[in-house]
C-alpha cells in the first residue's frame, strides 16, 4: 500500500510537474505568438481598396516629405511638380511615391490639395493595387460633405462615380486637416465600374465657357479640353475623333437624323441621368454649370463610340433647395435639343423622380448627411487649415440636412408642374 501510495503520490507529483511544464511551454508559446503578432505589421493583414475607400471609417493618412520639398509645395502650389514622399495608411507604407499640388479653384498654399501617384517614380508600384489617389482638401465646401454625399447618390442610382472616404492627413506628423480620399479615374476605375479596363477615359479641362457648340473639325481644338487618362500614347485621331463627331452631330441643323447621329456618339440615357442627378442636387459647376460645362470625365468603351459621363468634384452641389430642375438646361446645345423630344423630356422627368425616390426612401439622403457629419465633425473642427470657420462648418452641415430633407418634395412638385 505504502509503496503503491508512494508510487501514486510520485505519479501525481510527476503529473503536476508535467502539467506545469506544459503550461509554461504553452505560456511561452502564447507569449511568443503574441510577440509575433505584435511585431507583424498591420500591412500583413490583407487590406483592399474597399477598405481604403470605406466611407464609414475616418482614416489616418501619413505622408512624409523632405522638409524643403514641403515648403516648396506650399510656396509653389500653382505648379504641378511632383515631390518624392512616403505614404502610410494603417501601418502599411510605400516609399518613393510622387506627391503634387492639385485642383483648380480649390488649389491653395495653405491647405494643399494633393495628388499621390504610387507608380510615377517606380513604374509598376502599387498601393493596395492602386496607381494613385487624390487627397481632396474640401476647400470650397463649408460642410465638407457635399462631394462625398453627391458621389454616394450617383452610386446609389447606378451611375459610375469615384469612391470616396474621409481621412485625417498628417504630413511629417503634423495634422493638415480633414481630407477626402478620392479614387482616381483611370483604367482600374474603368475595370471596376464598367468591366472595361481597355476603355478610353478623358478628363475635361475648363478653358472657357463651353456649352456644347462645335469646336471645329481640327482635332487640335479638342486636345487642350480633353486630356486622355488611358491610351495616352495613342494617335489623336483614335482618341479624339469620336469626341469631334459627337459635337459635330450635336450641332447639325437637320432634325430628321439629329437624334440618331448624337445617339451614335453619346449614351443619351446615361447622359440624361447624369444631368438629372446634378439638377436634383442643385450642382452649380457641372454639365449645366454657371460657366458652361465642367467637372466631368468622358468614358468611351474600347469597342464602340457611345460615350458616357463620369462626375468629378462636387464641392459646389447643394446650392439652392428651391433650384429649378431645368436650370440652365437651355444653355447647353445638346441638352436643349435632347429635351425637345417629348419622350426624352419624359424620360428626364422620370429620372428626376428616381432621384427623389432614392433620396427620400427611408430618408436615405438625410441619414447619409447625418452619419457622415457625425463621423467628420471632430476632425473638421480640429482642422485649422480649412477656409471656413467651425461655425461655418456647423451651419453648412445644417443646411445640407435641411436640403436633404426638403429637396425630394420640391423636385417632385416641380415635376408635377412640368407635366
Amino acid at each position: 500500500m505504502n509503496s503503491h501510495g508512494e508510487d501514486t503520490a510520485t505519479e501525481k507529483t510527476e503529473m503536476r510537474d508535467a502539467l506545469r511544464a506544459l503550461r509554461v511551454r504553452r505560456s511561452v508559446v502564447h507569449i511568443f505568438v503574441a510577440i509575433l503578432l505584435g511585431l507583424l505589421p498591420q500591412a500583413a493583414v490583407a487590406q483592399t481598396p474597399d477598405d481604403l475607400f470605406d466611407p464609414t471609417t475616418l482614416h489616418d493618412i501619413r505622408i512624409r516629405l523632405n522638409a524643403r520639398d514641403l515648403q516648396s509645395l506650399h510656396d509653389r502650389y500653382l505648379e504641378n511638380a511632383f515631390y518624392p514622399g512616403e505614404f502610410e495608411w494603417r501601418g502599411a507604407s510605400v516609399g518613393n511615391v510622387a506627391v503634387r499640388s492639385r485642383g483648380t479653384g480649390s488649389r491653395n498654399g495653405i491647405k494643399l490639395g494633393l495628388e499621390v501617384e504610387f507608380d510615377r517614380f517606380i513604374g509598376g508600384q502599387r498601393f493596395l493595387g492602386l496607381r494613385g489617389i487624390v487627397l481632396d482638401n474640401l476647400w470650397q465646401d463649408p460642410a465638407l460633405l457635399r462631394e462625398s454625399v453627391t458621389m454616394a447618390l450617383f452610386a446609389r442610382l447606378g451611375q459610375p462615380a469615384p469612391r470616396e472616404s474621409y481621412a485625417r492627413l498628417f504630413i511629417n506628423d503634423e495634422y493638415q486637416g480633414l481630407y477626402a480620399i478620392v479614387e482616381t479615374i483611370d483604367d482600374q476605375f474603368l475595370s471596376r465600374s464598367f468591366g472595361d479596363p481597355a476603355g478610353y477615359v478623358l478628363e475635361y479641362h475648363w478653358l472657357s465657357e463651353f456649352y456644347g457648340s462645335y469646336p471645329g473639325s481640327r482635332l487640335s481644338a479638342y486636345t487642350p479640353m480633353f486630356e486622355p487618362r488611358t491610351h495616352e500614347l495613342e494617335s489623336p485621331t483614335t482618341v479624339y475623333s469620336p469626341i469631334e463627331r459627337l459635337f459635330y452631330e450635336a450641332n447639325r441643323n437637320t432634325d430628321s437624323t439629329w437624334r440618331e447621329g448624337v445617339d451614335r456618339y453619346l449614351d443619351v440615357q446615361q447622359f440624361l441621368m447624369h444631368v438629372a442627378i446634378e439638377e436634383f442636387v442643385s450642382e452649380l459647376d457641372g454639365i449645366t454649370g454657371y460657366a458652361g460645362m465642367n467637372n466631368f470625365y468622358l468614358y468611351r468603351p474600347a469597342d464602340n463610340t457611345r460615350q458616357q459621363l463620369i462626375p468629378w468634384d462636387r464641392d459646389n452641389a447643394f446650392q439652392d433647395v428651391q433650384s429649378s430642375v431645368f436650370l440652365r438646361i437651355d444653355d447647353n446645345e445638346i441638352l436643349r435639343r435632347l429635351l425637345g423630344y417629348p419622350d426624352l423630356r419624359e424620360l428626364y422627368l422620370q429620372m428626376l423622380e428616381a432621384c427623389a425616390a432614392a433620396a427620400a426612401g427611408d430618408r436615405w439622403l438625410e441619414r447619409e448627411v447625418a452619419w457622415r457629419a457625425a463621423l467628420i465633425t471632430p476632425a473638421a473642427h480640429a482642422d485649422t487649415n480649412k477656409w471656413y470657420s467651425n461655425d461655418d462648418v456647423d451651419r453648412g452641415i445644417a443646411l445640407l440636412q435641411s436640403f436633404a430633407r426638403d429637396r425630394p418634395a420640391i423636385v417632385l412638385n416641380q415635376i408635377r408642374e412640368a407635366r
Partner: protein
Amino acid sequence: MSGIYQVSWSDRVCKGCACIFLLTFCVKLDAQQAAPWPEGAAPASAVAQQATGGVAEQGETTFTWRDHPTLDIGDHLQLDFRARIQADVRRSGFVTADDDLDGVDIARRRVGVAGTIDRVATFEVERELDGNNPWRDVYLNYQQFPVQVQGGRFKLPLSLDENTSATNLDFIYRSRAATQLAPGRDVGVMAHGRHGLVRYDFGIFRGDGDNSRANTTTHVTGMTTRAGRVVIDPFRRSKSAWRDLQVGVAFTTSTVPEGFGDIRGRSALGESFFTPTILVNGARRRIALEQRWRPGPFSVKAEYIRLTNERLGQGMDNGDLPPLESAGWYVSGTWILTGEQKSRGADNPKRPLFQGGYGAIEVGGRIEKLSFWSDGIGQISTSPRAEVILRQSDRAATFGVNWFPNRWTKLQFNLVQEQLLIPSRDMAAQTLQFWSRVLRVQFAL
C-alpha cells in the same frame, strides 16, 4: 530641338544648289591657285601676286587669300577671316514623338576673325549667325612669355575631342562623352604653355561651361570652376612613328548649388535618354584621360571622362545621398586612304578634285559608351531624391567616310548604331537598339 526645322523639297533643292555653288566656287579658287605651274615650280613673284592680288610691301595694308582671307595692317595687326557652314541630312531609327530628329538641319552658320597683334598677342572672335547664345570663342592670348595667358570666353581645357574644332572632327558628331560630360566654353582666364615634353593649361572660369547648361531657371550648374590639363608627348624629340603620340590628364572642380542638376544624356542625334531630374548639391568633379597617336595616314584616339556630382543633404531626411555618377569613353581610329599625313590634316588633299585627283578620302570607326548611375542601398526609382539610380547608358558604334574634294569642302557620311539602356515602366533595364545615318556637307574658309 533648337535650330532644326523641317524643310520642303523646294527648300532642299535650293540649299543643294547653294552647296553646289559654294563647292564650285571654292574648286575654282583652288584651281586658279594651282594653275598654270606644276607643284613647286611657280616663281616666287607669281606666288606673291597670286596670293595677294597685288605686290605686298613692308608696312602697307595688304589683303591675301591662302587658307583664309587675311588682312595685314602694317606689321602690327593681322586678321584672318573665317566662315563655316554645315548642313546635315539625317534619319534616326529612334521611335520618338520628336519629328525634328529627322530631316535637314543647318548645324552651323558661323563667322569669325582671328588675328595677331604686334606679334605678342593673338585673339579670336567667333559667333553663330543665329541662335539664342551666338557667341563662341571671344578671347585674347598674350604670348610674350613662356607662360602664355589667355582671357575671355573659350573652351575649358578638358577633353581632346571637345577641344577639336568642329571643322576638323573625324566624325560628324563629337563623342557622347565629350558632348555631354566635357564642360565646353565659359568665361575665364588660363595660363598655358609648354615645358619640354609637357604642355599644360590651368585656368579659372566663371562657370562650369555651356555644354550641359540647361536653358531653364529650375536647373543648376557649377559655379566658379577650376580646370587643368597636362599633356605629355614622350617621343616628341624622336624621329620614329611614335613621335606624334600624346597622353594627357585633365580635371575640373566646381561647386553646384542645390537644385536639379544639368548633366543630361542624349544619343548621337539628340534623343534624350537621361533627363536632369535628379537633385544635386555639392562638389562637381571631372577627371579625364586622353590619348592620341597619328602615325602616317592613321590615327588612334581614346578618352575617358568621369564626372561625379555630390548630393549633400538631398535625402528624404536631409541626409546625404550617394553621388550622381556619369562616365563616358570612346576609342576611335581613322585611315586616310589617299595617303595624306593625318597629323597635317586630311583637309588639305595632295590631289584636289579637278586638279588631277579626287581629293582625300578617309574612313574611320568609333566605339563609345556614356553612362549615368548612382550606387546605394535602397529602392531604385526615378525620384529626384532617389538613393539608387538605375544605370542608364548609350553604347554606340559609328562608321564614317570623309571626302575632302579640296581645301574648303568636306562631305561626311556616318552610320551610327546605338544601344540605349534605360529603365522600363517596372524599373527593369530595357534595351533599345537603333541605327541612324547622317550626311554632312561642310564649307569652311
